[in-house]
């Protein structure tokens, strides 16, 4: 299963890149860093969901709080069968169904998101509502590390632990890069794990590109051995799979062009066939 998921993740990256190169836009690097996480959630038997019935009341909710990673989510959803892979060709096009930031009219997408610091609080509301209803589904949310600069994230973090939302799982895509610089140069986010712990969360730190580590971390969440909400700090590389974009500030929110795009696609094709 690990190898299959890894291969699937590379295929998804290849689709994300193709889609964004064609459109000449999209947050490629923000998407690439979280592809393994999304692949494990949707294809690794972690989340309970039904592509044939996107509004199934008992589905686990996935709230993408870093809405700029929508290309990754759209490809994963299309790959699951929520909508046709052909729809991906219309990404950010005049006749397309979706654009650069997340849109809740797309089957399988729970919220419109582009403004940071919001999806997380929404997810906490869903989790609290589920507790009130005695619904058993879990709510997963994916945050960007740069998103953690938003004050509302910490309003929600203390709210969720106070209300014992152990049905809420927040995954932080810790790729260490924002738009203009590395997070530790901008305003330090470390010690990230300790900060979440001090807000009353159970914290698991993983390599966000390791399928086995992600699976192991997410395997524990449904049993709810603790009353605390779970934060998974996933160490990632922003742009993973597109070498020329990795470890590079100011590559946020753009798609590669020309020769750079060609090279990147070749790189991903090689990965897909190799894995």
């Amino acid at each position, binding site marked *: 299963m690990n190898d299959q998921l890894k291969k699937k993740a590379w295929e998804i990256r290849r689709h994300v890149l193709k889609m964004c190169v064609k459109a000449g836009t999209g947050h490629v690097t923000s998407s690439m860093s979280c592809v393994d996480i999304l692949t494990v959630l949707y294809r690794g038997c972690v989340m309970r969901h039904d592509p044939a019935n996107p509004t199934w009341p008992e589905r686990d909710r996935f709230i993408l709080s870093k809405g700029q990673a929508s290309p990754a989510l759209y490809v994963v959803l299309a790959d699951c069968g929520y909508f046709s892979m052909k729809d991906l060709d219309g990404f950010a096009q005049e006749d397309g169904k979706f654009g650069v930031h997340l849109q809740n009219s797309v089957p399988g997408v729970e919220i419109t998101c582009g403004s940071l610091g919001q999806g997380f*609080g929404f997810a906490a509301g869903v989790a609290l509502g589920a507790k009130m209803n005695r619904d058993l589904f879990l709510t997963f949310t994916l945050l960007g590390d740069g998103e953690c600069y938003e004050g*509302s994230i910490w309003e*929600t973090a203390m709210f969720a632990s106070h209300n014992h939302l152990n049905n809420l799982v927040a995954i932080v895509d810790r790729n260490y890069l924002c738009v203009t610089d590395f997070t530790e140069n901008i305003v330090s986010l470390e010690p990230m794990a300790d900060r979440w712990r001090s807000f009353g969360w159970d914290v698991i730190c993983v390599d966000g590109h390791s399928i086995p580590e992600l699976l192991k971390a997410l395997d524990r969440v449904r049993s709810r051995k603790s009353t605390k909400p779970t934060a998974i700090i996933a160490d990632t590389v922003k742009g993973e799979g597109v070498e020329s974009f990795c470890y590079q500030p100011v590559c946020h929110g753009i798609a590669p062009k020309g020769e750079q795009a060609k090279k990147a696609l070749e790189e991903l094709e090689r990965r897909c066939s190799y894995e």
Partner: protein
Amino acid sequence: MNNLTQRDAFWEKVYSLAKDNKDIVVVSADMGAPSLDQFRRDLAAQFVNVGIAEQNAILVASGMAALGKRVFVYAIAPFITLRCLEQIRVNNAMMKFPITIVGVGAGFGYEDSGPTHHITEDIAIMRSMPNIIINSISDSVMAEAVALMSCQMKVANYVRLDRLTLPSLYKKGEDFSQGIAVLKKGDSYIVSTGSMVHVALEVARQLKKKGLHVGVIDAYTIPLQEKNLISAIKGTKKLIALEEHFLAGGLSSAVCEALQDHGVVIPVLRIGLDPHKGYCYKYGGREIIRKYYGIDAASVTKKVLTFLK
């Protein structure tokens, strides 16, 4: 109903509805009221205190609304509109999750608290977004009715409650679906909203003594139900719009837009807060502040007299 504040009339109704409907939830940003105490005591499972965290309040409320909860979010008016404006824009105006935002202290309601606690821009800001209905409450009968209406709304609404205990303008059972009410007929009209409707009525009384028959219209729902307003003022030669709100974008702007869009070309006197006067640090009561801006009954009467001459 004279003895109830708008706030207590509103929350008592919400309480009575919530007793029979566990999907009604109150999210408070550390804001209480005597009428909310019984809600907290008897319906603790339906009461969520998020602390002084308005952004999270709107987000949590919207998340619960996604599961079908009918959520009332409560705080002091400037904080539950402006601090979390973008959350409202994305979750409620854009995604249309139907929550009820309840702000107490409309206008200079927190009279001795200074300008941070006054709310003099909310109508302009909230009405600039689609899918948000403003319920600008002028008495406690309306407050109670709007509590019930809130539970049936398909979009989000913002209920601006005044802190004053004001005399009732309406009888129980009044239909508040028309957006405006003609409280007094006249040859010309003052259109107002919230507690300023009471000032408008006082002005009309003063003008009557001088032989002028000026009517009063309570515009309690914004966006205005324009057709109802236009039909109510049919034949009027001059119109006055009165508000405890900065002139930019508030009720008087909405009235002028309605007239323009319906081809009604008549002079309009806009009486509200002059932006050149800025924010004020006046204390000693609401009347003092209203006098400073020239929106107290005596100042308004003078302005209207000159305008109608």
